[in-house]
C-alpha cells in the first residue's frame, strides 16, 4: 500500500509541475495576467508531494518490503537500519527521486527568498523550474520507477547495497552532490526568464548570483566528500582518479565558478551579459551532460549506474529539449544589449574575463577528454584508447598556474582600470619569503627537497600573500578592516581554500611513500623511518559481515600509534572489501590496507605514508564555506 501511495504522490507531482510549467508561459504570451499568487503554493505543494514520495520509499526500505523491486535489489534484512535509510539513494531509481526533491527544494527556496514574486520574471523562472522537475519526474516514472512491484512472487530476502557504499560519507555524499547539480537549474531558469522577459540587467545578475554560489558550494562539498570516500574506501590511497563520473561533477563545478565570477561583473558593471547568459545555460547543460554520461551506460566506470539504453535516450531528450531550447532563445534574443561600459587590460573586468576563459576552456577540455575514447572508437571504426590521469594531469597544470596567478593579483585590481601597481613588488617579496619558509619546513618534515611540489608551493604562497596583503597594503584604518573583511570574507575563505588544496595536492604527490609487502604476525617493516609492526590478527563479526582484522603498531620515534585494517566479507552477496586503517595528523596520514592471506599468518599489506593529504579536503571545505558565506550574505540582503 505504502509504495502505491509513493507512486501516486510522484504522479501528483507530475500533474502539478505540468500545470506549473505551462500556465505562466501561456499567461505571459497571451498577456492575460491572472493572479500569480499560485506560484508559491504550487512550489510548496510539489516539494511536499516529492518528499512524501521519498518518505514512502524510505519506509519500504526500513520495513524490508522486498515486493518492491528496487528494495529487493538494494537492501536485505541484515543491513543496519542506518544504511537501509541511505540505500534509498544507493542506486539509480531512488537517487532520481532524491534529485527531483532537490530541484523542488531549490524552487521553494527561490520563491520564498524574494519578497514579491508577482512579476513576469519570477513566474517565467517558476515555469522553467517546473518544466525541469516535470521532465525528471517523467523520466523517473517511465524508465526508472522505484515503486515497481515484484508481485505475486516477491523474494523473501533482498540482494545487498554495494558494500563499499555502506559507509557514512556515502550516505550524505549523494544528497550534497545532487543539491549542487540540480541547483544549477535555478540560474539556468533565471537566465531564460531574463531573456524571455527581456530583463537582461544587473538585477537579473544580482538574482542569479547567490544561487550559482550556493550550487557551487554544494558541488564542492559533494565532490570533496566523494574524493575522501574514494580515499579511504577503495583501499589504494588515491583521492582523485579523473574517472568519468568524477569529471561529470568536476566540469559543472568549474563552470559554476566561472558563472558566479562573471555574474559579479554583470551586476556591478553591466558588461559580459551575453557571456553570463551563456554560462548560465552552459552550467546546467554540463550538469545534464554529466547525468547523461553517468546514467546512460555509454561510459563504463566504477560508480556508473546500471546500463539501460532507453534511459540514455530519455536523458538525451531532456538534455536536448532544455539546452537546445535555451540556446535557440539565446540566439534569437534581442541582441541590442550593447555593453555600455569599458575597461582596460589591467582591470578586474579583464581579470575575470581571463579567469572565465581559463575555467571554461578547461571544463570543455576535460569533457572532451572524457568522451574522447568514444569519439575515437567511432571515428577509427573500433580502435580503443584510454584517456586517464596522466593526460588530465598534464592538461590541468597550465590552467592551474594561470588561475592561481590571477587569484594572487585579482584582489588588487580596480574596476575599469587599476591605478597603481605598487603592490606587485611587495607581493613578489612576500611570496618568495613564504616559498622559502615552506620549503624549509618541508625539508625538515621529510628530510629531502623535492622539486615536484615547487609549483604548488609557489602558487600557494602567491595566493595566500595576495589574499592577506590586500588588507595590509591598502592601509585601511583599523575600524574599516572589519567592514572590509566582512565584504571580502567569502572570497578570502574560498581563495585560501584553493591555496590549501593546491599545496596539499603538490606535497602529497611528491612526498608520499608506498610499499607492497608480506608480513607475518610479529614482523615489522621500516618505511622511510616509520616502523610498521604487524601485531596480531583477529576475527570479528559485524551485523552483515565477518572480518579479519589486522592490528598494527607504528613506531614514530618515541611514540607508538596503533591502527587496524580489515578484510570484510559481506555475507549476502559474498563480496569482499578492504577497510583501510588510517591514522591522521596535521602533516601526514599513515595508511594501511590489508591484502590477502598468503599462507599461515602471513598477509600482504600495502603501507603508505601520505603527507598533507588532509589539506586537500580541508581546502575544499574552506572553498565550500567561503561560497556559502558569500551566497548567504547576498540572500540576506535580498529585497
Amino acid at each position, binding site marked *: 500500500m505504502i509504495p502505491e501511495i509513493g507512486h501516486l504522490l510522484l504522479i501528483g507531482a507530475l500533474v502539478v509541475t505540468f500545470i506549473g510549467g505551462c500556465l505562466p508561459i501561456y499567461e505571459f504570451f497571451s498577456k492575460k495576467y491572472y493572479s500569480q499568487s499560485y506560484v508559491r503554493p504550487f512550489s510548496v505543494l510539489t516539494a511536499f508531494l516529492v518528499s512524501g514520495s521519498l518518505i514512502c520509499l524510505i519506509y519500504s526500505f526500513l520495513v524490508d518490503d522486498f515486493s518492491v523491486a528496487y528494495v529487493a535489489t538494494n537492501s536485505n534484512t541484515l543491513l543496519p537500519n542506518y544504511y537501509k535509510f541511505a540505500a534509498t539513494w544507493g542506486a539509480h531509481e531512488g537517487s532520481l527521486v532524491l534529485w527531483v526533491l532537490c530541484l523542488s527544494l531549490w524552487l521553494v527556496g527561490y520563491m520564498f527568498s524574494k519578497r514579491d514574486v508577482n512579476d513576469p520574471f519570477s513566474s517565467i523562472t517558476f515555469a522553467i523550474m517546473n518544466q525541469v522537475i516535470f521532465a525528471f519526474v517523467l523520466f523517473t516514472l517511465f524508465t526508472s520507477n522505484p515503486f515497481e512491484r515484484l508481485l505475486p512472487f516477491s523474494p523473501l530476502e533482498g540482494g545487498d547495497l554495494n558494500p563499499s557504499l555502506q559507509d557514512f560519507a556515502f550516505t550524505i555524499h549523494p544528497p550534497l552532490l545532487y543539491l549542487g547539480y540540480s541547483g544549477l537549474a535555478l540560474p539556468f531558469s533565471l537566465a531564460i526568464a531574463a531573456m524571455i522577459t527581456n530583463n537582461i540587467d544587473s538585477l537579473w545578475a544580482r538574482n542569479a548570483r547567490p544561487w550559482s554560489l550556493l550550487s557551487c558550494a554544494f558541488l564542492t562539498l559533494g565532490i570533496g566528500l566523494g574524493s575522501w570516500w574514494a580515499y579511504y574506501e577503495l583501499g589504494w590511497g588515491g583521492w582523485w582518479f579523473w574517472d568519468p563520473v568524477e569529471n561529470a561533477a568536476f566540469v559543472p563545478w568549474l563552470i559554476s565558478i566561472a558563472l558566479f565570477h562573471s555574474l559579479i561583473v554583470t551586476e556591478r558593471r553591466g558588461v559580459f551579459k551575453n557571456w553570463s547568459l551563456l554560462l548560465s545555460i552552459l552550467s546546467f547543460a554540463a550538469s545534464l551532460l554529466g547525468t547523461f554520461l553517468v546514467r546512460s551506460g555509454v561510459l563504463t*566506470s566504477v560508480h556508473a549506474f546500471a546500463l539501460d539504453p532507453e534511459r540514455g535516450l530519455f536523458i538525451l531528450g531532456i538534455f536536448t529539449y532544455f539546452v537546445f531550447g535555451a540556446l535557440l532563445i539565446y540566439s534569437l534574443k534581442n541582441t541590442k544589449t550593447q555593453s555600455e561600459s*569599458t575597461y582596460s587590460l589591467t582591470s578586474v573586468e*579583464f581579470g575575470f574575463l581571463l579567469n572565465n576563459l581559463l575555467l571554461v576552456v578547461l571544463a*570543455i577540455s576535460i569533457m572532451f577528454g572524457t568522451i574522447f575514447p568514444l569519439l575515437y572508437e567511432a571515428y577509427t571504426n573500433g580502435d580503443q584508447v584510454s584517456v*586517464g590521469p596522466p593526460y588530465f594531469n598534464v592538461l590541468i597544470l597550465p590552467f592551474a598556474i594561470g588561475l592561481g596567478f590571477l587569484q594572487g593579483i585579482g584582489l588588487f585590481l580596480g*574596476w575599469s582600470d587599476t591605478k597603481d601597481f605598487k603592490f606587485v613588488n611587495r607581493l613578489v617579496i612576500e611570496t618568495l619569503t613564504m616559498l622559502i619558509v615552506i620549503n624549509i619546513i618541508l625539508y625538515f618534515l621529510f628530510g629531502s627537497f623535492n622539486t615536484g611540489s615547487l609549483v604548488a608551493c609557489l602558487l600557494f604562497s602567491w595566493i595566500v600573500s595576495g589574499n592577506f596583503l590586500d588588507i595590509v597594503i591598502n592601509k585601511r584604518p583599523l575600524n574599516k578592516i572589519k567592514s572590509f573583511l566582512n565584504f571580502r570574507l567569502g572570497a578570502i575563505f574560498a581563495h585560501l581554500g584553493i591555496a590549501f588544496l593546491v599545496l596539499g595536492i603538490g606535497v602529497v604527490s611528491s612526498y608520499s611513500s608506498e610499499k607492497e609487502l608480506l608480513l607475518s604476525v610479529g614482523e615489522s617493516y621500516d618505511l622511510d623511518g616509520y616502523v610498521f609492526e604487524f601485531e596480531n590478527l583477529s576475527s570479528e563479526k559485524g551485523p552483515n559481515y565477518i572480518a579479519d582484522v589486522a592490528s598494527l603498531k607504528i613506531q614514530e620515534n618515541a611514540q607508538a600509534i596503533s591502527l587496524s585494517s580489515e578484510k570484510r566479507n559481506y555475507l549476502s552477496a559474498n563480496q569482499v572489501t578492504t577497510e583501510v586503517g588510517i591514522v591522521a595528523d596535521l602533516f601526514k596520514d599513515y595508511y594501511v590496507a590489508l591484502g590477502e592471506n598468503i599462507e599461515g599468518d602471513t598477509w600482504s599489506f600495502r603501507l603508505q605514508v601520505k603527507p598533507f593529504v588532509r589539506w586537500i579536503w580541508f581546502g575544499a571545505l574552506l572553498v565550500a564555506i567561503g561560497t556559502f558565506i558569500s551566497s548567504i550574505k547576498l540572500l540576506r540582503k535580498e529585497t
Partner: protein
Amino acid sequence: MKSLFFSIILAISQVIWSVGIQNLDVQKELYPFDTVEEEIRFNKLLDDYRCPKCQSSNLSGSNSPIARDLKIEIYRLVKEGKKDYEITEFLTQRYGDFILYKPPFQPSTYLLWIGPFALLLIAILCVFLVKRSKQKKVSDTDLRALKKKFQSESENR
C-alpha cells in the same frame, strides 16, 4: 605553533635517526628493487597503465588477477633493464592502446593533445581582438567621462 615547532624537532631527529639505519627489510617486499630509481619507474608505470579487466582503474589500484599478473610481468621487465618505451610496446602489442592511460601522441590524437591549448589561444586572441575593436568605438571624451564615474564608484564600494 608549539606543535608545529615540536614536529619540526621530531622531524629533524627522525632524519638523523633514519640515515644511520640500512633498510634490512627488503625480503619482505613484494616487488624488491636494487635501486630507488627502478622502484620509482615501476610505480610510475603501474600508475600509467590501465587495468584491462576493471575498466576504470590503473594497475596499481586494482586487485584483479590480471592486474597482478601484469604487475609481475612489468616487474620482470623493469628488473631486466627494459626501457619504459619497450615496456609500453610490450603491453600495447598485446592489449592495444587501451592499456595506456596516457594516449600516445600521434595524428589520431593530435586533437586531444593540442586541442585544449589551441582553443585557449584562440579564445584569448578573440578577446583581445574584440577588445580592440570595441575600444576604437568609444571616443576619448566618453572614455574619460566613464572613467571618472567608475573611479568615484569604486572608491565607494
